[in-house]
């Protein structure tokens, strides 16, 4: 069977691509239009090597400005006191920990894509894993800001480290905050290693293509002498596999540990055994939404539609649908358990979630954004319509932030003693610190796409038909198997 006849030589339009994918049991190519190795290298490395487009400078100026102001807010808060935020008694945590959980959650998609999908041999991951991992790192950086600065005495935060000292005082290993410190720092370390390991072959490509000496030197340093030798590849792939294996449990553990901050406490709505899976699902949910939020514009701006295809978007939308449904189930289960427990404090807390002062956070954030909006992805048309996907992703981004806010502030502001009930109202410092972390996140991402290949060139090349030594056309392979 000659596969060549089924794939036209001319450039395929998106319509035709859909048409071909509708054929039963054919495998749609991961890179469209039979792009060559050279085309991929040019397109991806080109984004780094060409002069920065004007939009990049504008975008970077804006995000860096926001990041700068966010850093000013951090400095102001540290120098003046936590009182510059809107916290009070009884709401001791609000936007700070909400933002922490929000960013940590976003940081989950990267490792899921790079580690779990790698182990599961999901080859479509190759076009998105690099930027998803970068996003993970930047999100974890943003997340790590908050536990660091939310404490009253930042300059004493090293007490959380288990350092031997002459008082013989150790951190309290029963405290989930302590577990957080270990979980997040482990996760960040492993994520950096994983990301960097994956970068090495591409860094070597950039080194080889570099035109200036400085670039050649710097890329050369980080490429650690990669020459593409057989031995290099063998070690590389083994290291990558091991790191994937190490990272996989972390995907589940980090957000489980984060959820312990709440689950091990005694507050109604916090003290819940459902939290670890609920939080992990929510993290993947929010993380994929953020990956798409970043990738959809990048894909259009750098004309990467052949590498990040509608098929990729479709698959990510399915994951969003799945995790969104898990999250919705968890929400429903929380209400059921509150009722079933017969505990008046629990029951009240959940009524208060729906009808209390923060009612619209629940109706808009949790119900509409998190539960209802992903349901659009039951429809193929929606999964493949970039605008619909973008809309849903923005809903999920906002909804997941609201969810964490509802859990944290909703649990704190009306707990056991009605005499102590209160409200949380954010100050400008709260708001700008959060917006500032978006500035940091986007600035780092813009720097990343300027200086590093945003798509793993070497890995994408591996999924090309040419990489198959038998040179089977992917579609013909599928048909042959069917036959």
């Amino acid at each position, binding site marked *: 069977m000659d596969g060549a006849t089924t794939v036209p030589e001319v450039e395929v339009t998106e319509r035709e691509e859909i048409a071909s994918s509708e054929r039963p049991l054919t495998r749609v190519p991961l890179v469209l239009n039979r792009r060559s190795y050279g085309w991929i290298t040019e397109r991806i490395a080109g984004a780094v090597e060409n002069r920065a487009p004007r939009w990049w400078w504008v975008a970077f100026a804006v995000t860096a400005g926001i990041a700068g102001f966010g850093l000013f807010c951090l400095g102001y808060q540290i*120098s*003046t*006191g*936590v*009182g*510059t935020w*809107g*916290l*009070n*008694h*009884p*709401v*001791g*945590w609000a936007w700070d920990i909400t933002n922490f959980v929000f960013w940590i959650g976003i940081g989950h998609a990267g490792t899921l894509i790079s580690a779990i999908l790698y182990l599961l041999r999901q080859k479509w991951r190759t076009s998105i894993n690099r930027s998803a991992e970068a996003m993970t790192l930047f999100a974890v950086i943003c997340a790590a800001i908050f536990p660091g600065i*939310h*404490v*009253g*005495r*930042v300059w*004493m*935060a090293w*007490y*959380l480290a288990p350092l031997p000292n002459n008082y013989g*005082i*150790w*951190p*309290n290993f*029963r*405290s*989930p*905050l*302590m577990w957080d*410190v270990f979980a997040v720092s482990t996760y960040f370390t492993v994520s950096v290693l994983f990301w960097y390991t994956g970068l090495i072959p591409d860094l070597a490509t950039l080194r080889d293509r570099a035109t200036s000496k400085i670039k050649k030197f710097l890329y050369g340093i980080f490429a650690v002498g990669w020459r593409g030798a057989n031995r290099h590849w063998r070690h590389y792939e083994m290291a990558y596999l091991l790191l994937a294996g190490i990272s996989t449990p972390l995907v589940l553990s980090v957000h489980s540990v984060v959820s312990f*901050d709440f689950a*091990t*406490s*005694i*507050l109604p709505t916090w003290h819940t055994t459902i939290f670890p899976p609920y939080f992990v699902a929510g993290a993947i949910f929010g993380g994929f939404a953020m990956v798409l939020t970043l990738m959809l514009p990048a894909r259009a701006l750098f004309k990467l539609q052949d590498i990040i295809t509608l098929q990729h978007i479709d698959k990510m939308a399915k994951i969003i649908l799945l995790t969104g449904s898990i999250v919705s189930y968890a929400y429903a289960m929380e209400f059921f358990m509150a009722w079933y427990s*017969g*505990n*008046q*404090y629990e*029951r*009240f807390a959940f009524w208060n979630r729906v*009808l*209390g*002062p923060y009612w619209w956070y629940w109706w808009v954030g949790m119900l509409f954004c998190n539960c209802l909006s992903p349901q659009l992805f039951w429809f193929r048309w929606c999964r493949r319509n970039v605008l619909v996907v973008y809309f849903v992703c923005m809903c999920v981004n906002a909804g997941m932030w609201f969810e964490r806010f509802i859990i944290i502030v909703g649990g*704190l502001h009306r*707990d*056991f*003693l*009605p*005499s*102590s*009930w*209160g409200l949380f109202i954010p100050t400008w410092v709260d708001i700008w610190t959060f917006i500032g972390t978006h500035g940091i996140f986007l600035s780092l991402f813009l720097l990343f796409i300027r200086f590093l290949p945003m798509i793993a060139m070497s890995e994408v090349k591996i999924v090309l038909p040419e990489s198959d030594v038998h040179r089977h056309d992917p579609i013909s392979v599928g048909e042959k198997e069917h036959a």
Partner: protein
Amino acid sequence: MNRLYVVENRYTLTGAMADHRLRLPVSQIPLIAHAIATRVATATKDAGLGSVLATLQVPAGAAQFDEQWLNEAANDLVSKSGASLVLAGPQQPVVVQLLAYGINSALKNVGSTVLLRELRRNPRDNSILQLAGDIAADRIKQLFILGANPVFNAPRSIAYDSVGKGWLDWPELQKKVPDVVRLGYYEDETSALCRWNLPASHFLESWGDALSSEGHYLSIQPMILPLFGGFSELDLMSAVMGKPKVDGPELVQETFQASKPVGDPATAWSKFLHDGFASHIVLRDRPPAFNGNTAGGIAHNLWSAPPPAPTPESPEIVLVRDYSIDDGRYINNAWLQEMPDPITKLTWDNAALISPRYAKTLGVETGDLIQITVNDVIPTAPPPVEGKPTPTPRELEIAVLISPGHADNSITIPLGYGRDSLTSVGERSGFNGYLLRTASNPHYLVADGKAIASITVKKVGKKYPLSITQDHFSIEGRGLVREATLEHYREDNEFVKKIAGDDELPEKLPSLYRHPPLLSSQQWGMTIDLNTCTGCSACVIACQAENNVPVVGKLQVAHGRAMHWLRIDRYYASEHGYDQDKGELPEDPEMVHEPMMCQHCENAPCETVCPVNATIHSEDGLNIMAYNRCVGTRYCANNCPFKVRRFNYFDYNQRPVGKKKIAGALNLYKEYFAPFTEKGAPDTIKLSKNPNVTVRMRGVMEKCTFCVQRIEEAKIAAHVQAGTSSADIRIPRDSFTTACAQACPNEAIIFGDIRDPESKVSKMKLQERNYRLLQYLNVNTRVSYLARIRNPNPKMPDARKIGIASPNEKEEKL
């Protein structure tokens, strides 16, 4: 058990303790006194009371009261003849005082529950009105003002100036006196209009003497040498009499010796100082006597038929002393300013208290400003003048605070606030109720057509920020305050244990964590008897003083950052549930108080979550804080079910926190510019700190320690006395206590060793009324509460609304 009936217009602490409470506009109280007196007179057939009543006419259209309430209350009184007591508030007119006395006399209470004692009064005491008249007539050349602040609080329109033909307020009068000498603590309204100001020494820095309200002769001894020099009143009076200034107690000794103490003068003086009062001066009570005819004559002359009940269009204004700053004299005391009002929980301000229903009529909410205008009747006296001057209407713009349990169409304004001239703590706080006050209507104003033509209240349309520490009024059926009627308690001694959730608990709940054993021979615990706690808040201030608890200022209180380690929760229990989220408030609820501080849980949820081990358990059962280990994650406060942990959001002790704006009209508060403002506190503030207690910095958590410094002090004293540091040395039983327990006037708070079965606290904990909060959480608190018992009269129409703070047994099984 006694039974207390209270008739009042606003909730007071007495009203909160009452078994039956009737809310009624103040202007109607003479009528209800008359109504009760009539019933008592009929029942007792007392001639004296009868003859007083015979002289008093009740107008035909007067307000009607709940007949059953009155009859049953009067029957109850009569049935307790000789063991009952009727008290009239000090602001009530003389006729009401006479009626109260007449009732007591008719009930044979005089001599048993009422003692009559004649107190020595200076026969040359004069009213400020007479002084004002003398000044207006230019008869005063030199005026000494000792401590008082008449420019601020003298009645309005106090004198008539026949030359200028107008009514004068005190400031204009004072300006007419050529030479005014003022002895005072502060620069204030009065000092600004004085030629001479003398700094007064505080009573804690000077010698003095006084008469108590019971007539005892008391000594006043200095606790400290004067910090800033200054004169006491005695010093000044003695100087006026031309005597040299003395530093010691000579002047007081002179007076004391003049009272002819028995025995050796030096010993008698020492005893006087030691006892604090002169025991040799015998107080003689007068025999009971009530002359109905004389009283009737007086009453008849003074009785003016009470005005008709106030209406929404023409409300009454009631001027009362403030619970924290009294008549305004303590306005510069930041502790008192920040002390939540025991009833309203308002800090740093006063407000016009009104009932929820009246608020609805006016269309206002808490924090809305209203304008009160009082128009006087054009006066005819003093001497007729041509072209009678119209007095200017008295006006006041004041914020509203809706207070459940307040009488309708009545507005209560605590006095002493609204002092623009102060530059210290009291600056810009509250509204000046004295602006409405005249000598003829010192306590309440009502449009009676005699002195006051009309009172109008209208909404201004602006808001005023009020800092209130407790926003939620309902106890939500949570069994936090448990109470029962005496009847219910007698039927079921164990009622405190029958609260939803608690009654299903096993004897011993398991714990996930292993705890260090509580090995110490003494284990500290506390009980709080809700039956005797009146909510007076003395403990709040005692705790603040003892433990260097910082003052945070009005803005920070509004942000919910008050630092009090001990607060008093106040709930309104209502027969029918109410949802504040929907704007529902109870009109006539019962009020309960509950002091709340760290409960020193044995399974403390705060301890397990602290990542740095800054809050841990001591061997003697205290939940302790290591301030210098705390990094301030606030996790402990979040996980505290009682929300008693307090976080230093700013450097309250190092940087001036307050209402000061540093950039004109902009709302910029100094604490928000910490790096650029001066560090440190004035010496006087530093002197107020307890040297045995750490002053905390910003970013650390703090909370009640059970006055650990007192425990340690007592422990050290015990060790010193025993001459050994052995751990077996026990502090003598009940030999010391915490600051709150020490300050409590009713011994509602008992602290001590719960391992010692003979200690007071152990005995309290054995009472049937003893219960612990949130026991279902297995926190095992060391503080326990004793349930409240109310004693309603079952025949009263409101009996079913009494003693209802505990969750309803039907509701609890939801």
